[in-house]
């Protein structure tokens, strides 16, 4: 796939079982070719996704995190994605102050029938992450650079 | 921004020649309706039909040049009476939304085109910016009793995703404007059928067949005249009416107006300013009948 001209990056996906995981399955059944960077974690509902999972992934070195659930008003559990929508939106807006590029995180709504859309989402997000390149790892090297920078300021 | 209805006007080449009455009547009507037309300075050919059949980029560049010329004007958009010019302008603008395409076009221009001015037909402006109601309010000589077949031609509304105006299968803008000026609009079903277009030169038989059918159906609908918005359509139906009659053994004497001429007439503009004398099929009796009926009503 075009998105993967460079080496693979680490993209973590959290998908609700009923819609988006099904949508990813539908994309598979439809043989919609996608970049291979994404690793999907299945959860029952987008409402199960504690924003801290996303942050944990980003802190642990994920280059991108993608969350996807049922379309609002179409949650298998009636309300889960309503909570998710608020929490994920707040999370997205929180990232800049941490110095984490908010474009590394995205959330979207894909239903089980939207295989084509899922392909587009994966393709678009993967391309975006490749444009951003690998995320800075929060390790000793960064500490040293941080200190150097703090010194310079 | 200048007064609320000021537009860059692209007259098109036929407006300078074969359809000069369309251009003249358009200018007269717009003036009467308070729509200010400012000619695009140093406008050039839109490319007409030949250009885009050869090279899309060159074709777009021809229109883009005209768009570019208008971009420094203090106007609300670019308008043209001719559907063919309109198509070229709008297609060029539409294609240039693709950045890569636009880059190639810009390369051919002196400076890059912003491509942000709306492009419309004069018909769309009168219909949408002014509206039938406002038009009706300005009518002094209603065309009461004039039975019309509205004929839009094939490209005024097509392709819909580019032209983005009215229904592409059953347009109604001109219907409503004609009703506003007091005419009776017949349920003419072939509003967007092909008239034969430029086959008039190479394959005259095609035109006589297609335009012949238009005239037949218009007559069947009870229309006394046809009204159109396209120079080429008007020419095929009007100028070639004799050829059609000969080929089809028919005997139509159907006047074929530009809608602007009829609006002008209803607004009380002079026949000269509308160049009614340019029409091949003389419409004189139609206006006399309206006049007679009006006097009769008054009595």
């Amino acid at each position, binding site marked *: 796939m075009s998105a993967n001209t460079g080496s693979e990056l680490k993209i973590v996906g959290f998908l609700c079982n009923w819609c988006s995981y099904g949508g990813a399955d539908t994309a598979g059944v439809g043989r919609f070719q996608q970049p291979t960077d994404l690793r999907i974690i299945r959860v029952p509902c987008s409402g199960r996704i504690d924003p801290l999972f996303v942050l944990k992934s980003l802190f642990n070195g994920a280059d991108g995190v993608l969350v996807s659930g049922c379309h609002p008003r179409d949650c298998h559990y009636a309300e889960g994605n309503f909570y998710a929508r608020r929490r994920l939106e*707040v999370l997205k*807006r*929180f990232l800049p102050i941490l*110095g984490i590029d908010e474009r590394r995180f995205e959330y*979207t*709504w894909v239903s089980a029938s939207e295989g084509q859309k899922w392909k587009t989402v994966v393709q678009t997000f993967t391309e975006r992450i490749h444009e951003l390149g690998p995320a800075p790892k*929060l390790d000793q090297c960064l*500490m040293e650079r941080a*200190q150097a920078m703090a010194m310079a300021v | 921004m200048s007064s609320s209805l000021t537009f860059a006007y692209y007259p098109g080449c036929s407006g300078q020649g074969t359809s000069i009455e369309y251009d003249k009547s358009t200018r007269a009507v717009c003036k009467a309706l308070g729509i200010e037309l400012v000619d695009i300075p140093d406008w050039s050919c839109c490319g007409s039909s030949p250009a885009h059949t050869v090279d899309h980029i060159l074709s777009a560049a021809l229109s883009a040049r005209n768009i570019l010329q208008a971009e420094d004007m203090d106007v609300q958009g670019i308008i043209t009476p001719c559907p063919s010019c309109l198509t070229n302008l709008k297609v060029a603008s539409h294609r240039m939304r693709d950045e890569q395409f636009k880059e190639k076009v810009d390369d051919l221009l002196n400076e890059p085109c912003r491509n942000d001015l709306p492009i419309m037909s004069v018909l769309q402006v009168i219909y949408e910016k002014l509206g039938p109601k406002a038009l009706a309010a300005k009518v002094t000589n209603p065309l009461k009793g004039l039975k019309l077949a509205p004929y839009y031609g094939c490209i005024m509304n097509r392709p819909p995703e580019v032209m983005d105006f009215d229904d592409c299968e059953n347009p109604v803008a001109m219907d409503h404007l004609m009703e506003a000026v007091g005419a009776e609009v017949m349920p003419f079903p072939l509003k967007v059928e092909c008239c034969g277009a430029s086959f008039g030169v190479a394959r005259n038989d095609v035109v006589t067949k297609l335009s012949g059918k238009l005239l037949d159906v218009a007559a069947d609908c009870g229309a006394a005249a046809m009204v159109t918005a396209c120079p080429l359509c008007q020419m095929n139906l009007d100028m070639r009416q004799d050829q059609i009659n000969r080929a089809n053994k028919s005997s139509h004497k159907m006047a074929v107006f530009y809608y602007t001429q009829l609006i002008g007439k209803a607004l009380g503009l002079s026949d000269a300013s509308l160049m009614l004398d340019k029409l091949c099929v003389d419409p004189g009796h139609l206006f006399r009948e309206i006049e007679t009926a009006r006097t009769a009503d008054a009595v």
Partner: protein
Amino acid sequence: MSNLDTLKAKIKERLPDLDMVVGWEQGFDPLRATPLFMRTEEDVDRLIWNPLCVHNLATYLPGLKGRKVGVVVKGCDSRSIIELLQEKLINRDDIVVFSMPCEGVVSVRKIQNRIGSLDYVESVEADTGTVKVTVDGSSQSFGFPDVAASKCGRCQYHTALLSDEFVGEPNNEKAEDDYSDVTSFEARPQEERLAFWMTEMQRCIQCYACRNACPLCVCRDHCVAQSRDPHWMTQENSTQNKWFFQVIHAMHLAGRCTECGECERACPVGIPLLLLKRKLNKEIEELFDYKAGTLIDSTPPLQAFKVEEDNINERGW
């Protein structure tokens, strides 16, 4: 009779029905107040109310749940009480809230930055005009706004939003809060922001004073920071791990934080922790038009939803 005397009288009046009343007394040096747990009338006599009373005493209330407790609060502290009530973490019937109009408190840290070291403070005279600190026999005076806690500069609640015994004239002045601290920080390049936190957090000693001083960190003994199930954090003291705790803290407080600033004040190594929470509050205010701790009957926005959100665009690709 001064306001403070009236307050003391009121406390003495209510004390027989209460297990204790929490207020402030003078601490180990002239600059430091310290929480005072009043059980007798003699204790009440030690009560002070001045710009040195920096602590948010609402912090103690969840731990005293089930007891009858009086608490003296500043305007801002009352928001924590409202939030605690809203989240049913304390019972309204069990608490009596005493308050007076607050004109602001000092930032001990700002004074330290001015005078260098707090090790030798001999005397302090503080009112809302000036703060005079005597060190080593020489005195320095500061304009109050220069050494006041940052939250006081943007105070919208000089008067407690909730009180049972209020002494003095309510002050309804409201300062603007334009979150300029957040926006100016965010204007810095991204890499610099990341570097900022990595440098600051490296200093963290994981004492969790920030957490324990926070009136709304109600997990306390069961905080996920020190749990293996769930195992959100390791016990490493890597900067990444320490910083992740602050992110947990901030996220858990999203839509609940009343910006009392205790986290930041309590931090022994001076990490500007409130900035993270202010950022979340800014976004939550924009998204949900919500300010924590102002209405007892509302629900923290992240524990609620609207079918059609006013300010969240449905994301499409």
